[in-house]
């Protein structure tokens, strides 16, 4: 039983497919393959694939880093609640160091404000039960993490937990692909789609991509998965197929997880939303449905005197996120903006393109 899972890390198989692809790409010229997901960006580096197929195939990193696209307004809301309303902020570790206006949840915590880290959304309930203070959970992530946030809200309702609410920063992967497609910004010959978002929503969710005449494949995360996905995409490009395929069928079905989709549709509604570095994206985010107003921190608290500052002046994260430039084309990259002194979240988040490049490509000089 173990074998079926380990196969996708098998070095011998990976090596064989690698050699096969290296041979077959020789007939291709300057193909641009967009990997949507930040974890794919890291893994493609880690497995040694990033520069392996140049000049025939070039990987371009995409906007699939939910922390990177959390906007300044969203961070400012969280900071406001901490500083002005004395709430306990409960968050995933991913968001702790993201900078806004020179500060972060981490720096606020060292100033004495209460910030608690959880591994799973439901753990937030335990935090809320231990205090009388108002607690606000930051729901960050794409569709993958939304069932967790939804479960937290439903459980809070069921157990009548009154001091917990949620700030939804959740973002819509389909919407950003549509938005980029409509803008003509999807300048790519093929797209590697996120495997774990797809496990939740199903690969059919992304079928509208075909309207942009770009082939796309849903891909897993092990070395063999990535090469299988790339190979499938190369087949589609050569045959002129413009559809969605799935190279991660062991984990992803056409329709996704029915119950997760139901709870997402029940607890959330689609809203227009600001994506950091990109701008307002139609249908780009999710907020709590009106039925759950009581658990919506935006409705529970008043935000008198709330201000935020657009701090993106020195940061080209936006252009990096849509694959328009590579990180080293940003003048701040590696000079003012490093993992130690990040200006933008692309350098902080584990899925951030700039962090991936900083970690993996400096070794080449």
């Amino acid at each position, binding site marked *: 039983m173990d074998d079926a899972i380990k196969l996708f890390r098998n070095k011998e198989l990976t090596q064989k497919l690698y050699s096969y692809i290296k041979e077959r790409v020789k007939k291709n010229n300057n193909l641009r393959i967009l990997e949507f997901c930040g974890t794919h960006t890291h893994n493609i580096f880690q497995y040694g694939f990033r520069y392996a197929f140049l000049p025939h195939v070039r990987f371009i990193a995409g906007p699939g880093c939910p922390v990177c696209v959390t906007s300044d307004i969203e961070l400012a809301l969280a900071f406001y609640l901490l500083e002005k309303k004395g709430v306990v902020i409960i968050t995933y570790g991913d968001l702790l160091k993201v900078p806004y206006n020179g500060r972060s949840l981490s*720096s606020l915590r060292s100033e004495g404000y209460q910030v608690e880290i959880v591994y*799973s959304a439901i753990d937030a309930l335990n935090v809320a039960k231990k205090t009388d203070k108002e607690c606000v959970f930051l729901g960050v992530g794409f569709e993958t993490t939304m069932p967790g946030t939804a479960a937290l809200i439903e459980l809070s309702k069921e157990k009548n937990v009154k001091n917990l609410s949620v700030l939804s920063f959740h973002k819509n992967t389909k919407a950003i692909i549509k938005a980029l497609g409509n803008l003509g910004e999807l300048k790519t010959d093929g797209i590697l789609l996120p495997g774990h978002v797809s496990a939740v929503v199903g690969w059919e969710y992304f079928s509208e991509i075909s309207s942009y005449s770009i082939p796309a494949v849903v891909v897993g995360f092990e070395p063999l998965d990535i090469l299988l996905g790339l190979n499938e995409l190369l087949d589609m490009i050569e045959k002129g197929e413009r559809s969605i395929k799935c190279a991660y069928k062991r984990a992803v079905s056409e329709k996704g997880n029915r119950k997760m989709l139901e709870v997402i549709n029940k607890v959330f509604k689609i809203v227009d939303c600001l994506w950091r570095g990109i701008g307002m994206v139609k249908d780009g985010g999710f907020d709590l449905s009106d039925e759950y107003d009581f658990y919506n921190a935006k409705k529970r608290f008043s935000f008198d005197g709330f201000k935020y500052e657009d701090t993106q002046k020195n940061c080209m994260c936006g252009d990096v996120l849509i694959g328009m430039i590579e990180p080293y084309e940003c003048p701040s990259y590696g000079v003012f903006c490093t993992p130690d002194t990040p200006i933008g979240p692309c350098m902080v988040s584990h899925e951030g393109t700039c962090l991936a490049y900083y970690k993996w490509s400096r*070794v080449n000089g």
Partner: protein
Amino acid sequence: MDKVLITVGSGGKKSQSFIKEEILSRFYNEKLAVLADGALIDNDIIITTDAFTVFPPFFDGGNIGKLAMCGMINDLASMGAEPKYMSMSLVIEEGFSLEKLRLILDEMKFYCEKFNIKLVSGDTKVVEKNKLEGLIINVTGIGKRYKNILLPQKVYKPGDCLVLTGPVGEHSIAVLRAKGVVNFDGNLNSDVAPLWEPVKALIDEGIKIKFIRDVTRGGLSAVLNELAIFANIKLEICEERIPVNDIVASVCEIYGFDIYSLACEGRLVIVVPEEDAKKTIEILKGFTLTEQSEVIGRVVETGKCMVVLNTVYGGKTILDMPLGEILPRIC
């Protein structure tokens, strides 16, 4: 920033800059500037000091007392010094269980007897409840340079081998579990252990050791970067050669931790010339505490400061000084 952040204490970049900006700037002298685990004073006396603040004070595989003794013994061992004397100060939270304190002190006594270390001076303070969590133990160790060995050495050359004495991260995960940050069913003990005996054996056998450092806060990444910075050398590490504890690897995969930033308390990085590498491994494998020793990499260039990791799948990455807090992640 006018406040001391938690990252200053985590052994990574922020610790390093704090030491340079606040400590070295005020107290500079040649001995301090080496920033080794201890200092050589008076020809063959080595002194080292450390404070232990782990909370909770008990975790699988040990307690804060064992940590204090092993930490001190290993710091002295990194300087090639046999432990002889120690002083200790205890700062205890009011109301701390006397039974627990006795267990901790008994553990320390065990190691004093095992290594013939005499506690010659000490101090005890008690602070009001809630002004401190549990207790803090500071130990200062005095050791005698063994057989005139001088560590760390200053000259390295391409081909020098890097030895790691066992898998990394067990201590970190054991403590994170005791804190409730991670939870799982499975056997995992902290790797906390005193390593003077294997080091002594290497010296006795004439191994031309160039560098020893124990892998503590900041993990393997921190130690390798400290070496690279100290000696201004480029290191190449082969990921496949790094010994791994399956449980630690699984926890890291589930929670998204970077395994090379995780602290140990019973692992050493040792640099030896290429010609001594095989014998070094043979000697180390003769001790239970270092039986998983491996050569994990080499010095590849001098005059350039960098640590490169060749990953299992053929990628190359820079292993940077870790930034600070170990955070679980979801994305």
